[in-house]
């Protein structure tokens, strides 16, 4: 298994895609963090989907709202980089040589999932650092302060890293389930950018659905962080699961996708 992990890790880092995605994520998160910090610091309602609502977070709440952005805004990136672990193998047919050196297909799946934690941590740390880097100076200069000494802030940042890492693992498993690279990218982008936001807005508006909406992957991730970009900012009443349950739901997505991948994509003939 150690060998399998090293192999998977080398596969990922020997191509350029991962750092292209990383750079785009950094640029995007820096930008969003600056805009959000600015709009919160000036107390305005200029940005964000929940803008214009009554309760604008103040003080440390403003800081945590900005610092928590890496997950809800940036989770598409670790999902995408994770999905590449399988989709590039099928796109370039390297799955053949991968299975020649490791014909136990279950081991291949597990190795991909586990090794993605490394790249996930990179995305988690860099992504989380990006929102702090973008948000903190603006909050300090124009708002109530950056609150970088606060224990709550640091705990939030740590959980942000954990969640982004988990997204990477979920991405790996999803890529195994949808090995067609274009299809996987389209589904991930569509789901994260349109389907889930809409589903969660609808979920928070319709009481009967809020129980279901809690189990959407993005809502589970919010539960881990304890803040909801959609619920909190909008002042809505989206109920979040407890943190442990949020973690469990994210892990469950990864496991279900992985088992499904093993029994569909990886059961098929390769050739």
């Amino acid at each position: 298994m150690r060998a399998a992990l090293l192999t998977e890790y080398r596969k990922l880092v020997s191509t350029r895609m991962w750092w292209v995605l990383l750079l785009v994520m950094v640029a995007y998160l820096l930008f969003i963090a600056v805009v959000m910090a600015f709009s919160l610091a000036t107390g305005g309602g200029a940005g964000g989907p929940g803008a214009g609502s009554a309760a604008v977070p103040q003080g440390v709440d403003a800081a945590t709202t900005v610092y928590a952005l890496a997950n809800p805004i940036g989770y598409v990136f670790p999902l995408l980089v994770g999905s590449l672990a399988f989709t590039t193998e099928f796109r370039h047919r390297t799955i053949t040589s991968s299975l020649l050196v490791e014909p136990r297909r279950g081991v291949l799946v597990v190795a991909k999932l586990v090794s993605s934690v490394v790249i996930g941590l990179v995305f988690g740390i860099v992504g989380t650092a990006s929102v702090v880097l973008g948000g903190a100076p603006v909050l300090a200069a124009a708002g109530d302060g950056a609150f970088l000494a606060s224990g709550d802030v640091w705990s939030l940042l740590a959980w942000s890293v954990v969640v982004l890492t988990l997204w990477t693992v979920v991405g790996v498993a999803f890529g195994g389930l949808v090995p067609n690279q274009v299809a996987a990218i389209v589904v991930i982008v569509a789901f994260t950018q349109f389907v889930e936001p809409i589903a969660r807005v609808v979920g928070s508006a319709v009481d009967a659905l809020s129980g279901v909406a809690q189990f959407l992957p993005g809502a589970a991730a919010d539960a881990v962080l304890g803040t909801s970009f959609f619920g909190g900012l909008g002042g809505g009443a989206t109920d979040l699961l407890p943190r442990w349950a949020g973690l469990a739901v994210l892990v469950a997505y990864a496991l279900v996708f992985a088992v499904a991948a093993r029994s569909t994509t990886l059961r098929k003939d390769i050739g």
Partner: protein
Amino acid sequence: MEPAAIAVDHLTKRFGAVTAVDDLSFEVRPGAVTGFLGPNGSGKTTTLRMLLGLVRPTAGRALVGDRPYVAIPRPARTVGAALEASSFHPGRTGLGHLRTLAPQVGVDDARCHEVLELVGLVEAKGRRVQGYSMGMRQRLGLASALLGDPPVVILDEPANGLDPQGIVWLRELLRLFASEGRTILVSSHVLAEVQTTVDDVVIITGGRLVHASPLSGLEDLAERLVVVRTPTPEEVERIAAQHGWTVTHDGGSLVVRGATAQQVGAEAFRVGVELHQLVDRSVELEDVFLRLTASAEDLATRAAGTPRGRVA
């Protein structure tokens, strides 16, 4: 290095309506190069993929040594395989590709450099595979196969895209491996390409075995032709008739089928027939190969192409 043989045992693979491999059985011995031959679409690649655990057989099994490929621990140390070229990530370098495999093969970077040198890719190893030519990809595939210094080597059309020097080099490499006692199985759709390399041949068509023997066994199947020039053709025809040889006229010479030049010469000498020329026509193995592999298809097309019930 313990030699392991390959055994293909009643292997069948159907893709929907297409039967790619049909109840195929053959064995490959160590210490020899075996050519796995058949025309395009005859099921060579599918057979090799089943042998390597990539494709699940509809029926039958294939063993390397005493077990299926997937049950071999660290299989790349026992079996080195290269299937069709171009299965590389274009953004990876040649060396990068080998380094992704190395941990599971159980070798270090030094070995990666070593095999790159062996296949002649030292110059190109730092370049991305995107820019590799067909022959360079073929060599990189071979390098991947040899990474674990395996006693069994399986190559699917390894000569594709290689230049003449490359083909000679590959032949010598495979001969060397065979002399070391390794088991070598190479597929090709052209007999001539491997004729000087292989010891044994396994020939399939339409997924079915049509011939398996040492190369000399194929030579025995080649039709014997003797070209004879004589001032008394009718005498030669008489001799031929006595022995059951057939004779046809080809310009000013006679072509005798079913005998060697020795036999014809001895007989002519015995009965005192004057000969001006007596030549064995060189054995064309490719003709034998074409005849073996074409027959099944031709029979099928002929059957399909015959208008039913209208044969007067």
